[in-house]
């Protein structure tokens, strides 16, 4: 009964309802969009960290990650790969042969970090072919393809198809050479990477350094909802049985320098959310308090007409709850719409007047803000807004319930 009255009350004062409702909807919607953008930035950073490390969990020969020594290889490559792949919780197992050596042409020589990869598998983590500017990325035509960073190609005075000689140590410590032909050029925009990076197929890399049947690293991607630490522990057990002397690292253990940065960003994200919410709460509370205060007279009249104090309070609360519900529904639609719009088109920082820039680790294209819904955060924000809105009606409702009709009608605020 009271709900029907409340509902009708709302629509009787349509302008007021619309004003308050739209305020809450707008504020709530904006908050959701803000959270979406912030969370997206954070998520992307996590993804990049994982991609930079090479996977959620990494498997190598013991001591490889610290020393990067060429003699620390996984000798039973296919076995280990299969064990990782079949481990429950592993979405994808990515094999790699990593070689640190020298590439030479008749013009010059330069150090290279050569990655023997399976392009299709890598693309599921982060696709190195995205940075391809010339040629093809290990498309399979030749048996000795090599893709090099743009600055390296420049230094070595290479054209597509030219010879490239790789000098590196094999697992026995012997120096060995192998011939490649340049099949593609990548440019990341990061100077250090473009001076050092090289890619080839796993087979070609194996052949070059005598690592037939071996691997340097297996990167494992965790399935949704699987904790990386649990996965690592599981893999340790599964692989430990082989007594091969392998090491299993989570990406956090592999790149601890990124962890600090990410956690800090996370913290800043919460701080940001906190700021938003504080402002939101003030704005909404303000609105509702005001609205209710101003109706004290009207309520006093009702009181005088016989509606008891308590019920007036209930009425107010009911109205508030309904209004909040409506407003939040509208606000949610707004927020969701905003999220979808931002995610689809992105807010481009570049559009704000940045020229061609080359930043370590970032591409201008990356400086577009997208949006990600973190359900936990959205739920939290929604709960807070809802509670705050309703709570802000409590005090005035309580106060109104206590007024004597005569006082109330003279209540001018």
């Amino acid at each position, binding site marked *: 009964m009271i709900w029907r009255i409340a509902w009708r009350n709302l629509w009787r004062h349509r302008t007021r309802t619309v004003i308050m409702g739209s305020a809450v909807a707008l504020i709530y919607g904006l908050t959701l969009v803000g959270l979406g953008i912030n969370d997206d930035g954070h998520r992307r950073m996590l993804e990049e960290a994982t991609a930079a490390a090479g996977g959620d969990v990494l498997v190598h020969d013991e001591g490889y990650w610290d020393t990067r020594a060429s003699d620390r290889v996984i000798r039973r490559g296919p076995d280990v790969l299969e064990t990782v792949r079949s481990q429950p919780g592993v979405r994808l197992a990515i094999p790699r042969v990593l070689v640190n050596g*020298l590439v030479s042409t008749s013009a010059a020589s330069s150090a290279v970090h050569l990655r023997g990869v399976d392009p299709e598998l890598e693309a599921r983590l982060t696709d190195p072919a995205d940075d391809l500017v010339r040629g093809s990325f290990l498309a399979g035509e030749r048996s*000795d393809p090599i893709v090099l960073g743009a600055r390296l190609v420049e230094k070595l005075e290479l054209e597509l198809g030219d010879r490239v000689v790789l000098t590196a140590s094999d697992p026995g410590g012997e*120096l060995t050479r192998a011939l490649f032909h340049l099949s593609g050029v990548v440019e990341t925009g990061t100077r250090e990477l473009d001076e050092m990076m090289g890619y080839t197929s796993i087979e070609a890399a194996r052949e070059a350094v005598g690592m037939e049947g071996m691997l340097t690293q297996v990167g494992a991607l965790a399935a949704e909802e699987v904790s990386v630490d649990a996965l690592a522990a599981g893999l340790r057990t599964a692989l430990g049985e082989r007594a091969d002397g392998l090491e299993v690292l989570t990406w956090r253990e592999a790149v601890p320098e990124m962890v600090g940065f990410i956690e800090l960003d996370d913290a800043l994200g919460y701080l940001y959310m906190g700021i938003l919410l504080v402002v939101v709460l003030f704005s909404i509370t303000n609105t509702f308090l005001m609205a209710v205060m101003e109706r004290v007279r009207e309520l006093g009249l009702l009181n005088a007409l016989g509606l008891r104090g308590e019920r007036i309070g209930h009425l107010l609360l009911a109205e508030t709850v309904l209004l909040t519900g409506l407003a939040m529904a509208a606000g949610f639609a707004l927020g969701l719409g905003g999220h979808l719009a931002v995610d689809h088109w992105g807010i481009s920082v570049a559009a704000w007047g940045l020229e061609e820039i080359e930043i370590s680790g970032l591409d201008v294209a990356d400086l577009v803000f997208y949006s990600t819904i973190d359900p936990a955060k959205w739920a939290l924000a929604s709960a807070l807004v809802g509670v705050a809105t309703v709570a802000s009606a409590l005090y005035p409702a309580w106060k109104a319930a206590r007024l004597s009709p005569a006082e109330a009608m003279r209540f001018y605020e």
Partner: protein
Amino acid sequence: MTIRTSCLLIALATALSPTLCLERTAAQEAPGPEGGEAQLPDVDSVLDYLDDLYRSSSSHAVMEMTVIRERGTRELRLESWSRGEEDALIVIREPAREAGTATLRTEDGLWNYAPRADRLIRIPSGLLSESWMGSHFTNDDLVRETSYDEDYRASLSWTEREGERYLQVTLTPRPEAPVVYTELRFLLTPEAWIPVRWEYLDEGELVRVMTFDDVQSVDGKPLPLRMVVRPTDEPDERTVVRYRELELDVPVDADLFTRRGLRRVAGS
């Protein structure tokens, strides 16, 4: 597979001409450009001769090396010894500032000797392509030629340059051979097979040229005692090596190629 260290040292300035150490490949006869004006010699004989030319089980030499670069010229006087296939030692005698600096090669690797520190320092394999002693030779030139015979196939032909006729040994890499050059050409005098000019090409473009002159008789064989290395991308730069003394098959103490032996010799 025989590898001649002698080639290494003596032909130091010639970037260790690979021909001399090449395994014989199937003889490939090709008619001369004029269609058979003169018979091409047997490729085996040429290679044998070149091998013999520098054949020795040990050597001792004194050389002058001039390095001309954009920023100035450097003159060095070097003394060198070699023994067997792997051991080699080159010491700088002049100028005084650098005297005593040396490069030591054994089967275990390559080192530089720092006289002021009286210590050896290992040259990491990553530096093989770096310039040796600041010249236009590389460290790699000192250890490299072990794989030339694996990596190239040889053929002979007659060729004419500026009215002069030469016997040309053309080396092309075997498929998959990890070498940066796509072709090497060694021009020899037609009769005596004396090295005249070595050319290194990448995709048809000349990258490096070595020329030989000042032919003198050493142990009864004519040998060019002056070599000039020129990188084609820096036309004003070059390194010139001239032999002042050269003795082959002389007794050389195995102990020389150790820290102790080195010290003795470098200090003197």
